[in-house]
């Protein structure tokens, strides 16, 4: 960014670090207003950073017990250390934790592979088709000599990952269908999709989760049970789809009429037109809005605590109730914020890269 602040004189092809720094400093102090703003910022940093650094690093306790933490003034990272694995695996049986660990590894590999455009072919789909059930079986067990672990015991970062990835991956295609359906010429389809979108979007996620987890069993016939996590995933997927559908519809509406007419004049069928002409453009121009919604929905996964699912954030709040470690909420929240920030920032950076790749001329 600093390069854009440089004066518009003919500069060397690649300005060195020193030159860029000099330009940056110059840009910060080139007038009374900028000087005032820069000085205020420096004062703020001097006022904030040293105490923060002292708290987080210099006087922090990195290992030991709550007692040793209380003797030091700084942050108690020993607390996070003690609860780290709990925050990753939650209530999953401790001696079986290699299973969520390998599941997380597969999940990360699959997600990373899915972000690379070179892999966007049917092999990736096949990979997901194998990995998704495999991860579920690995977690649940009951076959191949793996002890059975109920979904209610899954927790921590593992369950956050499962809900986010499965929910967003299943909700995304559904959202495209809903968006197309809402613009369909078939009245019934249009009404149906509009009703779903408006009804799901019109209630808070909490009430959807509550309905799925607690109220639904009351309406199901005796003896019919659907696993609670499946119900939660269903609610979350539906919610994702309803929100994304409106983003996608925005993209569809932004397409010039000429694009539709050109596709029609080529004699393409409806699905060919959508798949080859309209959707690729509509989805591309809505990438920022999509990622915005994605990030919001990802953070919404913390709401599953209301029905007693121990997601990542809940494990930390539960750790605050350990009587041996009372009184370190700041550390727990800082840790949670850091993890969520890293994940959301990664999504944001990735979307920026996608935008560049898809529309090299637009920037």
């Amino acid at each position, binding site marked *: 960014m600093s390069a854009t602040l440089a004066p518009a004189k003919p500069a060397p092809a690649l300005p060195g670090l020193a030159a860029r720094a000099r330009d940056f400093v110059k840009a910060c102090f080139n007038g009374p207003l900028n000087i005032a703003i820069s000085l205020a910022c420096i004062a703020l940093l001097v006022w904030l950073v040293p105490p923060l650094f002292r708290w987080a690093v210099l006087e922090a306790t990195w290992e030991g017990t709550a007692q040793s933490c209380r003797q030091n003034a700084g942050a108690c990272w020993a607390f996070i250390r003690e609860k780290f694995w709990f925050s990753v695996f939650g*209530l999953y*049986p*401790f001696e079986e934790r290699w299973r969520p660990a390998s599941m997380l590894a597969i999940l990360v590999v699959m997600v990373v592979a899915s972000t690379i455009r070179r892999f966007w072919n049917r092999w990736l789909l096949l990979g997901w088709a194998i990995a998704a059930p495999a991860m579920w079986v690995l977690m649940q067990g009951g076959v191949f000599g793996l002890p059975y672990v109920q979904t209610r015991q899954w927790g921590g970062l593992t369950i956050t990952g499962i809900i986010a990835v499965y929910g967003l991956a299943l909700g995304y295609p559904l959202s495209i269908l809903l968006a197309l359906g809402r613009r369909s010429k078939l009245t019934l389809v249009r009404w149906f999709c509009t009703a779903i979108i408006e009804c799901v979007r019109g209630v808070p996620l909490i009430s959807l989760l509550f309905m799925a987890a607690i109220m639904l069993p009351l309406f199901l016939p005796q003896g019919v049970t659907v696993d*609670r996590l499946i119900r939660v995933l269903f609610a979350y997927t539906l919610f994702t789809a309803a929100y994304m559908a409106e983003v996608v519809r925005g993209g569809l509406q932004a397409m010039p009429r000429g694009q539709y007419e050109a596709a029609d004049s080529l004699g393409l069928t409806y699905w060919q037109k959508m798949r080859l002409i309209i959707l690729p453009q509509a989805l591309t121009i809505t990438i920022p809005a999509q990622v915005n919604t994605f990030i919001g929905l990802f953070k919404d996964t913390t709401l599953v605590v209301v029905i007693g699912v*121990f997601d990542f954030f809940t*494990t930390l709040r539960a*750790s605050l109730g*350990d*009587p*041996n470690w009372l009184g370190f909420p700041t550390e727990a929240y800082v840790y949670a914020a850091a993890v969520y920030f890293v994940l959301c920032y990664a999504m944001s950076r990735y979307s920026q890269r996608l935008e560049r790749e898809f529309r090299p001329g637009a920037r």
Partner: protein
Amino acid sequence: MKLTAFAAAAAAFLAFGPVEALAGRDLDQIRQRGVMRCGVQAPSNPGFGFPNAQGVWQGFNVEICRAVAITIFGDPNRVEFVPVTTQSRFPALASGEVDILSNNSTWTLTRDSNVNRFNFPAIVFYDGQSMMVPRRLNITSARQLNGATVCVQPGTTTELNLADYFRQHNMRFTPVVVADLDELRRAYDSGRCDVFTNDFAALAAQRTLLSRPQDHVILPERISKEPLGPVIRQGDEELTNIVAWTVFALIDAEEMGITQANVEQIAASSTNPIVRRLLGVEGNMGESLGAARADYARQIIRTFGNYGEIYERWLGERTPLGLERGMNRTWNNGGLLYAPPAR
């Protein structure tokens, strides 16, 4: 004539008897499943129920559930702990998601009524809303708090009780409402309010987190009654009995001085018939209750100790919470715990 009447009665007994002899619907379901589902407070409740670093539930309420599992199955591990939040606990119990709640729910008429159809077999902890003030204010009674600024969580019965108490005693107060308990404590610690109110157990836990805990006192008044205990669905007498007599066994054991350490020795040597019956040495109390074993109480005490030992392990003076026993002493020590005799 007499004989035919007898035969008819016998036939009727044979036809309907076995159905009557079966346990209640919920207890049957628990036995069939082979495991009891126990709802515990999510995310956690210091001392009462919290997951340790390995994700294993621990605490006072957790051991109450495990004790009930001993009575039903003879095995403390046949319990599944299901985290429930304050909002989801009663729907979870009503829908059968859990068999029993052990999460510090207050026994109230509304919850016990035919509308909500819950059942509170026994009280395991007598709590009550209290007020904490800085020692330097030299206040000894809540009646001296006219005009005080009070830190309170919004939207709870705590806020309602507070308003009721002050109105009842013709006093005025300024509330400082903060939803998050940690934030609320900081507000009190930094002097934004004179009084911090919450249930006694929670207040004592919060006191340990103040910058100078010894500078604060909890006033003697309990402005509300909060009897806490396990909750089940209404309509299963057998399960009610089992939960109640599990708790009673813990209390009776403390009253009679039976501890984890001496239970076997007392069972072998005691001549007191009440002790011998409680520990299953004589009589068939366990069987008539529907417990898995005649000596269920002995097994519970061997595993967890009596009420006092469980209390001291998770809540008592030597724990970080440091809760005094207060009302939760046995009746012969000046408390409210009074269990019917095992005979």
